[in-house]
């Protein structure tokens, strides 16, 4: 019972195969978006090593996201940020039972191809890495592996879905430990969805077409958003989440789950913090449980945050077309 809107039914990513004499289909929107649905209400944690991946699994993460450097360190290091070493990704896949995701550069089809070849469970076409093509994102329908992409507003989200993304996340401002931008992005998306829904319910098709043109996406996608009153794929929060209360807030704003980047492993209490963020995400609607989770961490051990206004690099402005 999930939306399959905008699926390219004859895409290269769909593979027909036989399993024990039964015809099976891999890489369909149902199978790819379905994977994202299994991550809901969970926490996906950025990791750079086997040890961090095992801490994440132990803490109850639903998946790990492998990258070469945590977003905070990407900011510090400067230069070009690329996909992680395949050897590290493969080692992590051999050491945890939960799904292993990895990031590739925006528009870098071949980083994505190699990640698919080694068998990562989901690819994040991410603004945390240096974009390879600002004009065009990857055509994700060509892949059997599902993709997640960042978005700051409804137009970005729907354009990514039209290109084949099976999951969306807010961009926020990665590596800052500052949740403000993630809040801003989910509010924008929510407000735009509310507007589309009310127009859909009023039956004003012409206005929906006008919105589709404004957002540079197909009419059918806008109509589906109106019908569902939400994005047609799973939508997580990401970019600046550092504490259990941050996670609970994002869940209460309607996100389906949480990505934590630098927030855990740039803190001084990673295991406790990872556990606490998982608890707060699960029980986001119960302030007493979230308070218990918040007690598990020490604010003195949180990563030092950054004020968005003084940033030299705004990762969220990458890959918006």
């Amino acid at each position, binding site marked *: 019972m999930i939306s399959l809107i905008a699926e390219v039914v004859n895409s290269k990513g769909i593979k027909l195969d036989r399993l024990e004499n039964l015809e099976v289909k*891999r890489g369909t929107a149902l*199978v790819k978006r379905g*994977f994202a649905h*299994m991550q*809901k*209400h*969970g926490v996906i944690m950025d990791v750079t090593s086997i040890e961090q991946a095992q801490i994440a699994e132990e803490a109850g993460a639903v998946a790990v996201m492998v990258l070469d450097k945590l977003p905070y360190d990407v900011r510090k290091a400067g230069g070009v940020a690329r996909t992680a070493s395949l050897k590290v990704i493969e080692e992590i896949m051999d050491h945890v*039972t939960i799904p292993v995701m990895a990031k590739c550069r925006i528009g870098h089809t071949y980083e994505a191809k190699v990640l698919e070849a080694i068998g990562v469970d989901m690819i994040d076409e991410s603004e945390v890495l240096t974009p390879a093509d600002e004009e065009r994102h990857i055509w994700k329908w060509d892949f059997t592996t*599902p993709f997640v992409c960042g978005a700051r507003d409804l137009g970005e989200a729907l354009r990514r879905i039209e290109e084949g993304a099976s999951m969306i996340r807010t961009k926020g401002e990665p590596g800052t430990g500052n949740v403000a931008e993630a809040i801003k992005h989910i509010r924008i998306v929510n407000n735009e969805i509310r507007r589309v829904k009310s127009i859909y319910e009023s039956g004003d098709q012409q206005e929906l077409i006008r919105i589709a043109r404004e957002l540079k996406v197909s009419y059918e996608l806008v109509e589906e958003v109106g019908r569902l009153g939400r994005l047609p794929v799973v939508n997580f929060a990401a970019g600046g989440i550092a504490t259990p209360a941050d996670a609970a807030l994002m869940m209460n704003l309607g996100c389906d789950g949480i990505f934590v980047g630098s927030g855990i492993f740039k803190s001084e209490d990673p295991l406790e913090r990872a556990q606490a963020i998982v608890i707060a995400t699960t029980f986001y609607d119960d302030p007493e449980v979230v308070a218990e989770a918040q007690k598990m961490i020490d604010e003195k051990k949180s990563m030092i945050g950054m004020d968005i206004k003084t940033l030299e690099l705004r990762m969220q402005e990458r890959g918006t077309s």
Partner: protein
Amino acid sequence: MRPVIGVLALQGAIEEHLAMTKLAFKDMGIDGEIIQVKKSSDVGRINGLIIPGGESTTIGRAASMSQLLQLIKQRISEGMPVLGTCAGLILLAKSVYDRVLGKTEQPIIGLMDVVVERNAFGRQRDSFEADLDIPIIGDKKFKGVFIRAPAIREIGPNVEVLCKLGGVIVAVMQDNIIGTSFHPELTNDSRIHQLLIKKVRLL
């Protein structure tokens, strides 16, 4: 008795199961209630339970933080009907191992006499959909959605096989417990959910 179906609402495809249960009630033309089971106090209110797909380690850990896992185990052992899909099947199984990592240390309910292999069909790129024959729900094929799915490798004497994918067992029933490797909540077909509701109505 008016059926009250609970969906274990810690992690995974919770809303999808809530919607499918609603559809199953509608398809059966009966009046039933659906609630989310998140706290120990919710367990007493239900007379049937669904354990959704998601990550079994995450769901098991969250359920064992409180008395929830223990209370659910008690109700199931007393005969409360339960449906476990994918991660839910893993949590119900007596014994679990991972295809690559071997024996897993994870909290489980462990009441179904089956041995389950996690990630048995491979990683996400190997995930698939296939039309299945499940005689107990009728002749019409059922769309099986297998996502990093587990397989049932051994079954005890009281376990009935509901569906096989070639030689691999992918759906089973043991008295009040139903387990599937696949995700009926991702389809539009409520027949597996109806099977659970029928069990609840027989109580």
